[in-house]
């Protein structure tokens, strides 16, 4: 394993310290317990958004803390849900009196830890609500099981709900909006190489030189199937069709297209994949109204990418376009 680190134990703290120093205008970083807070708190009475999850998916979530998006983020150990004490401290620091909204990716660990934090915060004056994201269409959706994973679509939920909260939407409205966006969103990922968790010291899975994992999770969880390496156009077709089958966008409906890098794939390849996916959407009569290309929800040093499509409408487009100023996403301010 080759990584730019000093030792396994310090990775998260050292990296967070750097993040805080590099973005001191945007965030304040607490190291014990670990959380990242907006440097300038939002106006009193507004809903505060708190998210978090295992580290290794950067810029998710800390890179999205700032005006118009998250108020706080709790980074766990690499690929491990953060703990309730982090969430509690982050929520209390971010609370502006208008209620707290947790944005949680649907993994047992994250769900349970945020649930415990919500229980501990039960008497917060503005209330506590949670939006679970589960946009990964690689996994079968079922109420009898864990259901689908939350992946890159989480970025879209955080952006759109963050904009609504900034505009003063109340807790119930923010929660309902988050659920609506999540439902309108589908993602599918593909890995060309495995990630390597620092503490594990070796790749999470082995892929042959001519293989790829279709439907991979952002922790290197196996996906739908291991298949021979496919050309970019075929990968894009597999992604677009799986997502459309799941979320059923209608011709003419505006789409948000996020082509997300898993961490180690060059930008050239991401834009090439974006182009392939965009063309396939337009071939289906779907209108790509907004686009985002880059590393937004990564899996450490995994090579590969994911495609996310969100069915938008005028109101959602307006919230997407609303000003945002975070380390990883910035426009309009």
């Amino acid at each position, binding site marked *: 394993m080759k990584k730019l680190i000093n030792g396994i134990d310090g990775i998260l703290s050292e990296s967070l310290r750097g993040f805080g120093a590099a973005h001191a205008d945007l965030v304040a970083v607490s190291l014990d317990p670990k959380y990242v807070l907006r440097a300038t708190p939002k106006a009193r009475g507004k809903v505060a958004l708190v998210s978090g999850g*295992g580290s290794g998916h950067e810029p998710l979530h800390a890179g999205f803390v700032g005006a118009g998006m998250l108020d706080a983020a709790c980074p*766990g*150990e*690499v*690929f*491990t*849900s*953060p*703990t*309730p*004490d982090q969430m509690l401290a982050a929520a209390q620091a971010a609370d502006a009196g208008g209620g707290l909204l947790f944005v949680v990716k649907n*993994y*047992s*660990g994250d769900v*349970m*830890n945020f*649930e*415990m934090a919500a229980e501990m915060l039960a008497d917060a004056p503005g209330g506590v609500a949670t939006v679970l994201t589960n946009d*990964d269409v*690689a*996994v*079968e959706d*079922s109420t*009898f*099981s*864990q259901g*689908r*994973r939350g992946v890159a679509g989480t970025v879209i939920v955080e952006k759109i709900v963050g904009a609504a909260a900034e505009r003063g939407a109340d807790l119930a409205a923010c929660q309902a909006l988050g659920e609506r966006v999540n439902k309108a969103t589908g993602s599918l990922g593909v890995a060309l190489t495995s990630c390597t*968790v620092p*503490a*594990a010291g070796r790749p*999470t*899975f082995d892929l042959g030189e001519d293989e790829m994992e279709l439907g991979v*999770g952002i*922790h*290197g*969880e*196996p996906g739908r199937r291991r298949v021979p390496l496919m050309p970019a156009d075929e990968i894009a077709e597999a992604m677009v069709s799986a997502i459309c089958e799941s979320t059923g966008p209608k011709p003419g409906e505006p789409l948000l297209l996020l082509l997300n890098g898993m961490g180690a794939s060059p930008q050239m390849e991401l834009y090439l994949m974006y182009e392939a996916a965009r063309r396939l959407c337009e071939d289906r009569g779907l209108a790509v109204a907004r686009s985002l290309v880059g590393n937004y929800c990564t899996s450490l040093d995994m090579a590969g990418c994911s495609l996310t499509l969100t069915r938008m409408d005028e109101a959602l487009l307006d919230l997407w376009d609303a000003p945002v100023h975070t380390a990883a996403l910035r426009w309009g301010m």
Partner: protein
Amino acid sequence: MAPDDLRDLIARSAATIAAHEEELTSLDRAIGDGDHGANMKRGFSAVAEQADALAGLPLGEALQKAGMTLIMKVGGASGPLYGSLLMAMGKALPDGGPADLAGVAAMLAAGVEAVKARGKSDAGAKTMLDVLVPLARALQSADAGTAAAAAIATARRTADEALAATRDMKATKGRASFLGERSIGHLDPGARSSALLVHAACDFLEDRS
């Protein structure tokens, strides 16, 4: 429980987890995200560091405090689950500790219920509950007069068999559920850590008696 005994139990638990860190991680790499070993080690090291403080407490309080430590230090799925297990066991404990086998069984059953509630889960989903539920059932259905040695043997055998049975299960909860059919053929890492802890507790009880 005497302070030294509790210290011994904690040390044995932490030691078995540390000794099997690699194995737990590699099981989790196969059907999860490869951190179960690190998670469990982080949690049980933290409990071991508190051993002196815990040893001075009544067992019920000590269990609750250890459970809270797991919750605050582990994260992931195993943190809240093992934390809830210990906290509920501690709460269910009658003053002065369990009087007999039935008392131990009741305490464990209370812990298992808490895990089910926290995990919105039950046996059959290829998780730690597939060791914990059969274990609690076996202890609860044991005759009141069962000798300690026999109860210990039952606990060990039940845990081993239950762990082995997770291999052929299809996961429907936890991270392994995302694999669907592909989760079949692997032991569940949480079931393995549960079995390890059962063995540690049995070793402790055996050596004490």
